[in-house]
């Protein structure tokens, strides 16, 4: 099995170029998971400017977010899904691209809610620390997130921020768990054509304490041979 860096690097489309660059940058940093956010954000911003904005063949063209929002989305996404020894981070998995595309696709209230939330975050950080979220120190960012990441322990004044962060976290989870890396992390082991259907595996049946009454189909079926699509002659339209 490939590691996260190889998965990212082996992806065929150029869209992943800047994520690979980010990944390399992060791997060069001393402590995994405790990336100094200000320097990362600075580097990410320069990547956005040099790679995303000119719109070359190898870049991600922003669809809904501004460059500043894009940077914040990347930093926030990696706070939510960081890299660990089992997978890369949200940005490694292309979550910011997913979010930018999804917001463009859905538009309307969702886009306004996310953009408004990102603005709220920067306003609040500026008020407290004199700089936007991505330019705050790692500790300042963490303090901010701890105010809005726990709906049940939040002050009423932060309700706006909580609603935003809950929605944003959902977007990150959606993007991560539908990415190639997220599917390996789960893992989802389907989408593989089968010769027969085995039913629930015996260890799981035992763990659940259920009774499996039906025979697996393999026991009732003759071997089918290779799985193959029908040929055009079998499934074609004679007359248009």
């Amino acid at each position, binding site marked *: 099995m490939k590691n996260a860096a190889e998965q990212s690097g082996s992806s065929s489309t150029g869209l992943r170029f800047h994520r690979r660059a980010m990944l390399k940058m992060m791997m060069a940093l001393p402590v995994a998971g405790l990336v100094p956010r200000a320097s990362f954000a600075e580097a990410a911003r320069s990547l956005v400017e040099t790679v995303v904005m000119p719109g070359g063949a190898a870049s991600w063209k922003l669809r809904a977010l501004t460059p500043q929002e894009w940077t914040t989305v990347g930093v926030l996404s990696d706070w939510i899904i960081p890299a660990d020894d089992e997978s890369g981070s949200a940005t490694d998995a292309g979550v910011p691209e997913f979010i930018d595309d999804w917001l463009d696709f859905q538009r309307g209230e969702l886009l306004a809610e996310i953009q408004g939330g990102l603005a709220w975050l920067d306003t609040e950080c500026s008020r407290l620390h004199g700089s936007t979220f991505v330019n705050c120190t790692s500790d300042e960012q963490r303090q901010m997130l701890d105010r809005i990441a726990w709906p049940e322990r939040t002050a009423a004044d932060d309700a706006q921020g909580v609603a935003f962060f809950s929605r944003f976290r959902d977007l990150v989870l959606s993007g991560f768990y539908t990415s190639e890396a997220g599917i390996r992390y789960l893992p989802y082991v389907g*989408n593989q054509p089968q010769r027969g259907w085995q039913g*629930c595996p015996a260890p799981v049946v035992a763990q659940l304490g259920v009774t499996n009454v039906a025979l697996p189909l393999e026991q009732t079926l003759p071997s089918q041979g290779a799985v193959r699509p029908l040929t055009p002659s079998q499934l074609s339209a004679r007359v248009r």
Partner: protein
Amino acid sequence: MMGAMPESEYDVIIVGSGAGGGMAAHVLTHAGARCLMLEAGDWYDTARESKWLEWGYDAPHRGTTDDEHAYGGFEAVVGGYHVDGEPYTCAAGTHWKWFRSRMLGGRTNAWGRISLRNGPADFKPHSRDGKGFDWPISYEDLAPYYDKTEELIGVFGSAEGLENLPDGKFLPPPAPRCYELLIQKACRELQIPCIPSRLAILTRPMGDRPACHYVSQCYRGCRMGSNFSSPVVLLYPAQQTGNLEIRCGAMVREVMTGPDGRAAGVSYIDKEMGQEVQVTGKVIVLAASTCETVRLLLNSRSSRFPNGLANSSGLVGRYLMDTVMSDVTGWVPSLMNLPPHNEDGVGGMHLFVPWWNYERQRLGQLPFSRGYHIELSGGRSGMPAPGLLTGSESLLGGGYGKALKQRSRSLYGSLVSFHGRGEMIPNEDSYCELDKSTVDRWGIPVLRFHFRWSDQEIQMARHMQETFQQIVQTMGGKVIESYGADQRWGISEGGEGIHEVGGTRMGSDPATSVLNPHCQAWDCKNLFVTDGAPFVSLSDKNPTLTIMALAWRTSEYIASQMRTHAV
């Protein structure tokens, strides 16, 4: 209305290529009739166009589409609730949603493949409880056609011998998924039946069609032809007879009638050329989909038929019905952290819950008269799609970082959903008519909908909510999505079931029905309907199998009438 008609080019003109039109074409071409099929959408070949096995991360928006347009995602649908250039309207207070699929095979490309027979009580609902109307035919009339349909299309299931749920000619069912076994266990404790589902998916090879390969993607269309769709199972074999011509992009405007009052042919717009075309036929079969068939009849006005064709009863468009739906989702901790396993299976549930309260209803112990069944989903079945593992506040408790990442993964596969699908009793307030002020892009007047659930349906939705929550609790789970009285127990909007039927109901009296017991128009004897419009009631059973069995019966009648020159 036309003057002198040229000699008919075709024995039969069939409008629509879905379940009803496909079956009519299959039966009639094999009986030797020269058939012309007109389909409003484009050609669609599932063997080439299905998004089979494609990963979400390789597709636009992860293979999803928005609520209104279904085109462009993984789903084998061209259309949706919104079709460009083809509007419809709703009366004040009505929120009807009309799903259309403009493609060869119509909605059979993406449908759920659930294939349940109507039972004896479903044909005689008025006799059962005094509400609604009886069909002019009985279960025994249709049973041989259910047999033949199941043997042709391939349906898996199990013989259970349950009340009002006739067993069929079944292929063996696939073994249950893990979460389904857990639901079955809870149902056993609650004395609710939970049995193998009945889907039109091959678990054994049938002719050129290989058995299922279990990737749970039936809704994308099957490149193998292992599930039922009208083109693969009905239309291509019909073409092999040499008796079927299919014209796509043909939007039918009206049925033309001759001076004798007989249907002479149809007039359609060739969408590619932008031209009006008239074709003649000895028999006209309408299978355009329930509401489109109604619209066609209402738009087929002439001095002889000023209120539309076949509408002397005034009942065309009346008694529109759709399935009653309400859902609950639960989180079941014992399904967390299971060993990874492939739970895809077929493109649909392996187990379901048929209606089980006939005796209590006979005793008058429930506040509604008809039944529902429960469709199941959940676990690790199917490719992860956006929305997976979200709902962070109720389940994850919030947070971020490595702990959130691990916690969210541990939840994977632990959600189960219960989808109630119930019978609506036809009412006077649910119908469609022509909107006199709105036309589509071809100038054809559009439909205006009126729709209302009665208290019967609301009470049924309440029973669904209470039952599903009880099952979740019995599984040791926690309900995370449910609906209360202020949300009308989560009842769907009319049309969202995509089971719309009625509008040209069959009957034994021309004053109170549009079609006779052979689905032949009382007013026009060479005009037949083979889609969902002839339905007199909509049982909890999904309508497609009954549409096909009825279309087979109607088509055999047409063939016999043509042999004796009666039509």
